[in-house]
């Protein structure tokens, strides 16, 4: 895939969050919800409906993929569960978004809009 990751920027905050928690580990639906809430310190609470709509979009855009095999440590769990993981393209998009945000924070800090080291 040689699409330009910048074409999808800026990402919606919950899309970036889902990418982040999936980059950490491959997960199924509810595990994504839980990890997202923890990661964001409770600031972003995804509902199941919103989650799957986002997942649909992310699958269509090639940011994530559905796993054929499930991670080893959850063997014996319910067979129906679908697991998702980040694609290489998804990683590149997430990185590009994170850099974009870092630049924005840097710019804001330069004019004293945010705290940090004086």
């Amino acid at each position: 895939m040689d699409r330009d990751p910048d074409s999808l920027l800026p990402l919606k905050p919950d899309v970036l969050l889902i990418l982040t928690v999936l980059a950490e580990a491959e997960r199924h639906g509810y595990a994504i919800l839980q990890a997202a809430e923890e990661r964001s310190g409770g600031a972003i609470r995804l509902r199941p409906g919103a989650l799957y709509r986002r997942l649909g979009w992310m699958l269509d855009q090639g940011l994530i993929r559905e796993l054929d095999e499930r991670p080893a440590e959850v063997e014996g769990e319910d067979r129906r569960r679908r697991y998702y993981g980040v694609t290489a393209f998804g990683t590149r998009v997430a990185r590009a978004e994170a850099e974009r945000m870092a630049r924005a924070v840097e710019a804001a800090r330069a004019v004293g809009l945010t705290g940090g080291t004086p």
Partner: protein
Amino acid sequence: MRLLLALVRGLLRLGPARFRDRFGASLLETVEDGWRAARRRGRLAAWGFAGRTVADLPPQLAGAWMERFRRTTGGGTMAGRWDMDLRHAARALARRPGTTAVAVAILGIGVGAAATVYAVVDGVLLSPMDMPGDDRLVLAQDRQASGGDAPFATTGGVYLTWRRESRTLEGVAAMMGWTMNLTEPGLEPFRLRSGLVSANFFDVLGVEPIVGRTFRPEEERGLHRVMVLSHALWTGRYGADPDVVGSVVDADGEAWEIIGVMPPLALPGRGNSAALVDGSRVRTAWVPMNLEESWQSGFRSHLVLALGRLAPGATVEQARDELAVLTDAVRREHPENYTGLTAHVTSLREAIVGDVRGDLLVLLGGVLLVVLAGCINLGNLLLVRSMDRSRERAVRRALGAGRGSLVRLAAAESLLLGLGGAVVAAGVLVLGVQALGAALPADLPRRAAVSLRPGVLVLTPLVALALGLAVGLLPTLGRSVGDPVGPGSGTRTTRGRREQRTSRVLVAGQVALACTLLVGSGLLLRSVRSLASVDLGVSTDRTLVVDVLLPQGRYGDRRGTADFLRRLEEGVEGLPGALEALVAYDPPTEGTWTEQFTIVGDPEPEPGDTPGSFYRPVSPGWFETMDIPVVAGRTFTEDDDLDGPPVVVVNQAWVREHMPGREPLGARIHMETVRNNWGGDAPVEWEIVGVVGDVRFRGLRAEPGDAVYFSGRQSPTTFTRFLVRTEGDPEALLPGVQAVLGELDPRLPLAGATTLEREVRAATAQDRFNALLILAFAAAALLVASAGLYGVLAYAVARRRTEVGVRMAMGAAPLRVWRMLVLEGLALAGVGLAVGLALALLTGGLLGSVLYGVSPRDPVVLGTVVLVLGGSALLAAAVPATRAASAHPAEALQSD
């Protein structure tokens, strides 16, 4: 959970098939996981999760639809087509301004009203308290092991046992209601309702002071007079001055050091109830309890509210079992105090909002019924419209329009309706929350938490939009692609049979819902009326009630205090406009002090079986002024003072309960209260000299309590309610009373005043509020149902104009035609009425807990509802029928 899954599954059906096939199963599974996890945190958390999940789905599905349309039609031309469709839809809606306005109003008002009530329920029942980790806080109390009565405060001794031994609770704090008089130079004297708390109180609650510190363990020993201020007391009395920490104030004649200030938080505790004190508004303070005092650490006085924080992994049930075992151990050591008692543990939130949950859920149920009725009506309106336009649709299909474009057209119309509804709903919500905020009963727990949260404000219009879209699209989507209706196929009288039948079912459904709501509101109204007409057993008019607290020991012993109170009475009686001044612990409409006693000469009761009764010290003249009848013997006179023999008066309920079939006059009871309070030579045996009528001082809904009245001259109390019967407006006398008080003792604050009538009215505030709200819902549902009935009948009549014309041309009398049409309408309403009554009878039991003095099957209410609904149906049917029957046959025949 099954209901939740069914709901999600149903909603999914409204979404695009692709989304459903792709994610339906996974989504259901995730919802199931989420529910399980939330359920472990408690029922409220689970409900919250379910509510949020269901509320989130419609907008997501609408979004999925949009994405689908965007995909199926190429982007560029799509915008153009949508634009065209929207214009077309707007023109179509504008052509029927009446129908459109009704549809928008129904949608907007229905959803807006529902959201308003949800905002209240959310604030009171669902939103977290402003305390860290509040879901882990529990309230531990004592209760009778046999069940029955409500739980009550525990004793200091049992609290200390729990605190020492409990493993399921990682901390247990104690709190007792306490009152102090603050007197400082240059400041008004202030009666402070404070809390006596354990040193770990704030640690268990998990709250840090914003200035200074909280209590240290050694400060529970009675050696340290230290005080922590509430935020409101700090800002209101001390101008938010941080330097006040470290200063010393005079409270009840003793010097107390202020050591800290708490942030503006809702904190539990006021008096001996678990009600939250809103720390941003209530001026209060906390002082450490004193374990050296036996009434604070012994096993006799039930005054302690114990608040525990669950240890990690522990549940409320485990804590309940463990504390019950600990209480069992106490009982073995103190059988005289703890026989028959066990521990009662609930989550703090449950304890705070438990009382109003029933009321609020009734309201929510009512509003949901209204929304349902509104949606049915809206669907019906749109169905009728779609019937009207089936010919137009057929022409379009014949010209090659795909199903997608037809759906799009319907979607455009629904979208416009939905947008209108969304605007109206947002308006209703904003106004509604404001109006409701002003009307909420002042004593509603956590009332301060009721506010318009941004989430609700955003979600409400979205729900209205989604409902508009869903209801508007259903008739179109429900039609199979191969709909055989071609242009001109079928005649106008046969076409749309199926739609007509659907429409009739919908109308009957609306009538049924309106009927259920009307019955509910009728019952609540009757209940309010019977509450208002309850005979209190006492006259409440023109009576000023003033709270006065005398600092312990300020006037010396029993004699000094009794003298002070008599001088106060005499001073106030000298005021122009005052008829009689009386002192009591409780006003006649309240009962808060109970004591144990035995009847002299009766066998000693078993430990734990000592009878108790309400203890009511009153001034001489009490019964005469309050119109409480004397049944036997005499009442108190001024001679029943410290020099006279100790006497009491009991009420009829007391005789029924404790001396049935025996002569109470002349009997003596043994009661140690007065000696406990005043010590020394105070008597413990009291002779019954009179029996008086019962007063409902335990609340309007409760049976009158049993009471022993004491003469205030013989057993004065330092916490007093001061009552003044006046000639005119009682409140006009307040400045005079204040002046008398200031003259007698300038350091004594007057702690709040009200009138007896207002206190009684306040007791029914919640009921009146409920009834009014439900009545408003019922009126809305009645309007909606009548409009629906009218719409359907008018439409049916219009369709049958040809038939009517033929009949009349053939010589049928207009009256017969009229009767035929009206009967048709009434039959429809009758079916709905029957279903509605059945529904009302079935659900009546749910209302049982909030009703008073009226059966859920009250014939008056049921009859009235039948009459009102029948009348509305008659009116709704008569108008179109009259129009049809009065038309000239030729006109009718030509109309098509």
